């Protein structure tokens, strides 16, 4: 059963990440790309946590802590220093 759960969860993570990458590539403005990159980081965090939960270990927890702390810096700096009109 856990094998099937791992496969289904992997498919969900992969589709979510690919849709976020699609929005990063196609996004009509800089802010859409920033939001999509946030979603990509959140997907990576959730995938690392799911791998920990399925394999019953806690090795990735420091990685999760660092990502939760510093994933905000990219989107924050882009949103703060966005020029008045971006060239898309």
């Amino acid at each position, binding site marked *: *059963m*856990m094998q099937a*759960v*791992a496969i*289904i*969860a*992997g498919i*969900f*993570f992969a*589709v*979510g*990440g*690919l*849709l*976020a990458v*699609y*929005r990063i590539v196609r996004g*009509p*403005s800089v*802010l*859409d790309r*920033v*939001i*999509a990159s*946030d*979603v990509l980081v*959140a*997907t990576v*965090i*959730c*995938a690392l*946590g*799911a791998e*920990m*939960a*399925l394999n*019953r*270990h*806690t090795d990735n*927890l*420091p990685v*999760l*802590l660092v990502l*939760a*702390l510093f*994933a*905000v810096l990219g*989107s*924050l700096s882009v*949103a*703060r220093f*966005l020029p*008045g*009109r*971006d060239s*898309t």
Partner: protein
Amino acid sequence: MSDILHDILTAILVLAGALMCLAAGVGLLRFPDVFSRIHASTKPQIFGLMAVTTDVAVNNFNVGTVTLIVAIVLFQALTAPMAAHLVGRAAYGTEHLRPDLLIVDELAGRGAPGSPGAASVPPPPD
């Protein structure tokens, strides 16, 4: 806790987190403007992370793991709304919004806060 119940709880929480990530991707693909995409993007950042880390805490229940997980969820809950708020303000300031989708616009006529000179910027050509 019996083993089969343990497996079922793990499966439910992992699938909930994965479903949040999938829903965020679909929301990014389908939603029309920046504000509704922000709404979609904050789901895996909080709910997905909480489901997955709760799962880890259930599987390895001791003081160190639970402390680290509380710190992870706390920092994510502090930083994710900050980023979403700044992106929303920047979106309002640079007029990346669709005014026909807004129900209430309390900032109308005041200019955008935090982005000087943004009120005189023409809308982007798209």
